[in-house]
């Protein structure tokens, strides 16, 4: 476990930079995590995606299926990769404060 600091934000992260305590997430934390993903600013589209992931996660305790993510946000997968270059699982989920996906994901 390591501590990640960005401006005033200070959070526990794992070796890959995912949050250890997803409950500590807030919008400033999202900005901090985005900076590690090469995303300097979060546009309205970024927030749309992040908020959807966040809501789904709070309801079900896991990220949604990728097809569902694309359909419900209206973003094709290509667009998700444009927004978060490391993709939905490693990029978008990380910024939304979800824990690192496990298994063959």
């Amino acid at each position: 476990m390591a501590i990640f600091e960005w401006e005033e934000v200070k959070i526990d992260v794992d070796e890959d930079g995912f949050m250890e305590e997803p409950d500590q997430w807030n919008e400033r934390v999202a900005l901090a995590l985005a900076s590690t993903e090469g995303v300097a600013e979060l546009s309205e589209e970024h927030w749309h995606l992040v908020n959807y992931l966040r809501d789904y996660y709070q309801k079900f305790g896991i990220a949604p299926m990728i097809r569902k993510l694309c359909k419900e946000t209206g973003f094709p997968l290509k667009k998700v990769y444009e927004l978060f270059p490391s993709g939905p699982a490693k990029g978008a989920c990380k910024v939304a404060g979800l824990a690192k996906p496990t298994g063959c994901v």
Partner: protein
Amino acid sequence: MELKITEEGLKKALKSARKPEVTAKQKLPVRYHVEDFKVEGRTRAFLEAFAAILKHSNYKFVLDHYIRISAKCSRCTTNCQIYEVTGDEHDIPCYRSELLLSIYRRHFTVAGQMSGRLFGDPGLTDEHLQELAASVWNCTACRRCVNECPMGIDHGLVTHLARYVLSEIGIAPRALVVSTREQLIGDSGNTSAIPVPALLDTLEFLEEDMEEEKGVKIKFPINVEGAEYLFVPAVSDFLMEAETLMGNAAVMTATGGSWTIGTGYFDGINYGLFYSDHVLEKAVQKILAEAERLKVKKIMIGECGHASRSAKYFYPAFCGGKDALPIINCMEYAYDMLKAGKLKLDPNVIKERVTYHDPCNIARPGWIVQQPRELIRAFCKDFVEMTPNGRQGVCCGGGGGTVSIDEIMPYRMEIGGKYKAKQIVDTGAHYVIAPCANCKKQIREIIDYHKLDAELVGLHDLIYKAIIFD
């Protein structure tokens, strides 16, 4: 595409994502993350774990045989997709096996113990242990070298055993250990930590999509007691492979199959196959328990190579014996239905060129080689084989659990998956069919990393596009 790696590529591939202070603390120069373990006295602990495993398993007679016949002739190099890229002697399969066999010879045979005392051989050193720990996770356990070994040594088995002993003293990739822990003692009980409500939400979503696209009601039957088949895919399919699952459901619906998904256990993944016989046994027992709960007649594994092999071969070995329920892969079912005339596919839907990647775990034993090809030929006009293929097929480069270790991705791209990238380019195919959750993830990354003009799909993804409902 040139197979041989460049100096720049090698630099990228071997770069470690581990923090130097962790490597120093654990005294372990490997590229995968390892949870903290007892560093002091670990050579002794390794030997004790090895002794215990030998006492309670059948490995001893295999090793006694291997240490006598191993000729170290290196013919296996011609069948190793890692060695073909690096040309490094440390990547020769029989060199890797010798790392473990030499420990066995020195410590577990009378001759080894005698000569050790006579000539002052200090026995297993920490440096040797470090080399073993690094080496066994460079191998993808694809067992292609078995084809070429004139003595018939299964280097994949030796690698598995070395990983098993190492895991007993706490040295195993964290990615696999964490997933396995969630599967065996976690709340969700599966490797991707999917809670049941999320599973049900996903399946409902897919049912709606299928009705929209096909105009037919296609269900995922849940907890149906007495169904013929318990369907167990790699659990990651519920997050990643919508089209594959829709293909599975479409085939079952079109052919009138009796099947069910159990909410008690729905994960075919078994990382025990890669690093621990304990885990292997416990994970297959979970499938058995669910099959008994729902009183099904057979078990059907989804598109996943290692899930199929671990269930097919180790479920009878560990907990079924000759009374074990029959286990099939979903492609066998689709093939049987095609032959019976119950599965109808439109030959005018898939116009692009397709190629087929053989997942090592189902193709190497010759179990599933012909069935998917006949299915493909039934509806794809332009089917091109990779060379070599079938039982001789080349690993995607993410086998043996390595695909789940994200931090070694550059190694999997520059070295492990280079041969597969070349094969894909050479076929000129648009669709690369890989009916395996491991291979799918790896080949998607290969296509992206090497900027290939191809699309990765599962076999059932294409069947879903072409299936005809009466």
